[in-house]
C-alpha cells in the first residue's frame, strides 16, 4: 500500500461517491462500505490506526469483483481494484485469508486448478488433434473452459480446422494463476506463471489463442506486472481477435446462417482491460441472419457478470446478485441470443436470462460455419 499512486487513489476515492450508481458489488449489497469510497476509507482508517484487520475489513477487500467499471465512469480514471488486490496480500501475510480462498489455494496445490477437478473432457479432444511438428497456434483452454465449458474448446477446434490453422493443445495444461493472484497468493501465482510459460514455450507455437480473456489478459499484461519475464516473440490473442483476423484474411467463411436478434456482453477483462470491443462485434455482424442489438450499457460501461475477483468462491450470493443485475440490463434488449466472449461470464449470465440462448462467441461462430 506504500506506493504513491495507491496513496493518491486512497485520497481521491475516499472523498468521492461519483461511481456509486455503477459499482457491481455496491449495487448488490447496497452498503456504502462496498463502494470505492468505503474501501478507500477502510484503507485510510487502517493506515491511520483506528481500524484493524478484523473479520469485516477482510470481507470488504474480498468483496470486489475486480471489474474496474468504477474507473470507466471516472473521468480522471481512479481505480480502486488494484488496491483491493494489494490489500489481500496483506491479509494473506497476516494469516487471515477467508476459508474459501484457502480452499482454492488447496485446490491448486492438489489438482492444479481452482475447481479441484481431476478430469477434463479436454483430454479426449487433445487425443484426436492432428499432430503437427510446427503448429501455428497453441490453443490454451484455461481452467474454466477445461472444467466447466469444454464445449467452447470443441467449437474452437472445429473453427481452427475450418480455417486451416494447425494447432496444438497442452496435456495437463497448467493454470495461468490469475485466480491465485487476485486472492492474494502472489508467490503461488508466480509459480503457476513460470510453469505455464515453460509449457507454452515447449509447445513450439509462437501464437497463443484462448477463449478465456482473463488468461490472455494475464499473459499480456499480468505477468509483466507480477515481475515475470515474458518472451517478446510470444503473441497472445483472444479468440475474438483470432476470428476477426481470420475473417479479414478470408480464412473464415461464415456462410451458415444463425437467425435471431443477438446482444453482446463485453467481458471485463476483454473489454475494459484489453479494449477489445470491435472485434467480437465485427465477427457477429458477419454471421448471416443475425441482427445485433446493443445493450443500454455496453463496451466500457458493460455490467460485470459478477464472476470476477474470486467473488464467486468467497461470496457466491454477491456474484449471483451481480449476475442478476447484469441479466436485467441484457433482457431489456429483447434479444433471442446472448453472446459473450468469456466462459466465466457465460457461466454466470446463463442463470439470469431466462428464455435466451446463451453462447460463447466461439460457439456461435462454429455454428455459423458452412455445412457441407
Amino acid at each position, binding site marked *: 500500500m506504500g506506493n504513491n499512486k495507491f496513496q493518491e487513489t486512497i*485520497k481521491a476515492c475516499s472523498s468521492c*461517491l*461519483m461511481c456509486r450508481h455503477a459499482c457491481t458489488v455496491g449495487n448488490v449489497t447496497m452498503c456504502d462500505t462496498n463502494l470505492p469510497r468505503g474501501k478507500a476509507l*477502510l484503507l485510510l*482508517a487502517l493506515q491511520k490506526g*483506528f481500524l484493524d484487520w478484523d473479520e*469485516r*475489513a477482510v470481507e470488504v477487500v474480498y468483496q470486489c469483483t475486480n471489474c474496474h467499471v468504477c474507473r470507466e465512469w471516472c473521468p*480522471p480514471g481512479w481505480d480502486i481494484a488494484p488496491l483491493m488486490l494489494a490489500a489481500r496480500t496483506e491479509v494473506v501475510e497476516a494469516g487471515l485469508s477467508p476459508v474459501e480462498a484457502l480452499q482454492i489455494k488447496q485446490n491448486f496445490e492438489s489438482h492444479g486448478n481452482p475447481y479441484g477437478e481431476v478430469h477434463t473432457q479436454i483430454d479426449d479432444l487433445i487425443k484426436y488433434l492432428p499432430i503437427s511438428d510446427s503448429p501455428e497456434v497453441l490453443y490454451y483452454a484455461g481452467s474454466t473452459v477445461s472444467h466447466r465449458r469444454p464445449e467452447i474448446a470443441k467449437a474452437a477446434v472445429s473453427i481452427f480446422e475450418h480455417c486451416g490453422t494447425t494447432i496444438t493443445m497442452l496435456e495437463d495444461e497448467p493454470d495461468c494463476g490469475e485466480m491465485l493472484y487476485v486472492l492474494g497468493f502472489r508467490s503461488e501465482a508466480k509459480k503457476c506463471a513460470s510453469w505455464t510459460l515453460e509449457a507454452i514455450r515447449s509447445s513450439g507455437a509462437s501464437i497463443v489463442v484462448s477463449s478465456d480473456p482473463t488468461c490472455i489478459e494475464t499473459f499480456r499484461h499480468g505477468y509483466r506486472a507480477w515481475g515475470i519475464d515474458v518472451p517478446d516473440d510470444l503473441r497472445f490473442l483472444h479468440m475474438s481477435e483470432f476470428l476477426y483476423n481470420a475473417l479479414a484474411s478470408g480464412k473464415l467463411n461464415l456462410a451458415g446462417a444463425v437467425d435471431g436478434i443477438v446482444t453482446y456482453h463485453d467481458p471485463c477483462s476483454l473489454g475494459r482491460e484489453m479494449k477489445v470491443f470491435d472485434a467480437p462485434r465485427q465477427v457477429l455482424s458477419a454471421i448471416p441472419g443475425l441482427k445485433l442489438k446493443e445493450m443500454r450499457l455496453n463496451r466500457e460501461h458493460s455490467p460485470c457478470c459478477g464472476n470476477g475477483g474470486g467473488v464467486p468462491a468467497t461470496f457466491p450470493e454477491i456474484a449471483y446478485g451481480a449476475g442478476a443485475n447484469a441479466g436485467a440490463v441484457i433482457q431489456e434488449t429483447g434479444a433471442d441470443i446472448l453472446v459473450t466472449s468469456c466462459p466465466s461470464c457465460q457461466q454466470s449470465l446463463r442463470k439470469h436470462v431466462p428464455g435466451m440462448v446463451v453462447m460463447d462467441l466461439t460457439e456461435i461462430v462454429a455454428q455459423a460455419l458452412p455445412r457441407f
Partner: protein
Amino acid sequence: MTSRLTSYQLDMVLSELVDIVGVEDVSTAKADQLTYAVDHYWIPEMWVDRGLEPVLPDFVVHPKSPEEVSKILQLANTYRIPVIPWGGGSGSQGGALPLFGGITLDLKKLDRLIEVDERSFTVTAQAGINGQQLEWEVNKKGMTVGHYPASQRASTLGGWLAPRGSGTLSTKYGKAEDMVMSLQVVLPTGEIIRTLPTPNHATGPSLLQLFVGSEGTLGVITEATMRADPIPEERRFRSFLFSDLAKGLEAGRRIMTARIRPMVMRLYDETSTVKQVKRVLGITAEGSYMVIGFDGFKEFVDLEEAKVIEICSALEAQDLGSEAGMKWWNHRYDFYFPPRIKSLPRMYGTTDTVCTYSQIERMYQSKKDVIETKYSDWQAYYMAHFSHWYPWGVMVYDEFVIDQPPEDPHQALRLHNQIWADAARVSIANGGVLNEHHGIGVKLGFLMKEQYGPAWKAMQAIKDAIDPNGIMNPGKLGFALR
C-alpha cells in the same frame, strides 16, 4: 438523547434489530461504522485525514420496507436512541452524521421503482433508489426526471428531497421541492402515512412541504411521487461575456422578469470567469461569463434564444457562440471528481444563498468582503456563480477557499465554523437565507433561531409534537435535544 448505550443495552438493541431486519442487514462492525460516520461535510473528512476517529453510529441497519423502518423507529423510542436516515451520504452539511451514535438507517434497499405513469408524466419510487438509476428507468419511457444535481450518480431520491435539493436545470424544471407530488413517510412514532395525492390543493396547509426539507428530523421519507418531463426534441446553448458582473446580473434579471424560461443560466463572477473561460474555451478573458441553455420544441428554442441574444446585446455582451455551452453540458460532472473538485488539504465551503434581484449585488459584495477582509491573514478567497434563477431573484453559489488552513484539527474546525457563521449571518442580514439547496444539517443548525426569529418557536413545537422523544436525527436543523 445524548447518552450512549452501555453494557447489555447494546446487545438488547442489536438482538431486536436482528429480529426486525435479519442478521444480514445489521452491522456493528467498525468498517461499516466508519463508512457511515463520514459524509461529504468538510469536518469529518478533515478529522479522519488528520488521523482522528469520527463519531460512530452504534448500528448500521439496512431496512427493506417501510414496515421495517416503522418497527425500528418504535424500538428507538423504547430505548430513546437516535435514528439517522442515510441515503447516498453525499450531503455537504453533515445532515447524515451520527452525532450521538445510535442507528444509522441506510435506506438504499428501499429502491423499487413502483410506477411510471406515462399519461400523467409522473414517477413513483421508493426513496432509496439511486438518482442515475431512476433517471435511466424514466428515460426508457421517453421521459426525464429533470433533476440533475452534481451528486446525481451518488444520491438517492429521498436524499434529493430531505434537504430541498436542486439540480443543474432547476431554473426551468424547478428544485426537488417543486417536482415532488406526494410522499410516504414513516413518522418518528412509527405510523406510516401518506401526504395528499396532489401537491396543489385547498385542503389545508401543505403536509407534503413539511417533510420536504426536514432532513430526517421529522420522520423517514420512504417513497415519493415526482413529476417527470418529456425528453426535449432540441437542447441548445449560447454563451456571452459581459464587461462586468453587474451587467451579467442585469441580463439575467431582464431574461427572467420577461418570463423567458432558460433551462439553465450560469453567470460567473470576475474571479470565476477567468478560470471557467480558460477551462471551456482555452482563452484568457476578463469580465463576467454566462452560459445559457434552452430546450423544448425547436421553434420555442429559436424564439427564446433570439430574445436572449437581444437582451444580452443591449447590455453590450460579447456573443461567444454555442460550442462552449455544449462542451460544459457534456462534461458537467467532470468538475466534481478529484482532483478537480475542491478537496483536502484545502479548507472550503459553498455558502449558497438566495435573495431578490433588488438585494443580490449587495449580497454578493458583502459576502466577498467578509471572507476576503476578515480572513485575509489566511489568504481566504471568494468566488461565485449564479446558477438557479427565479422569477423574483437568484441564488448565488459562492465559495470560500483557504489553501493552507491550520494543521491542528481543533483550530481548523474553529476557523471553519467561524467563517461559516460570518458568511451565513451576512446572508441573513441582506435579505437572504442560511442556505438555498444544500440544506442545514449540523453545520448551520445553530443559526436557525437567528434566521427564523420568533417563528422558530412554531418550528420547534412542530418537532416536539411529531417526535416527542427527539429520536430523529438529533443535532440537526437546530432543533433542541430531548
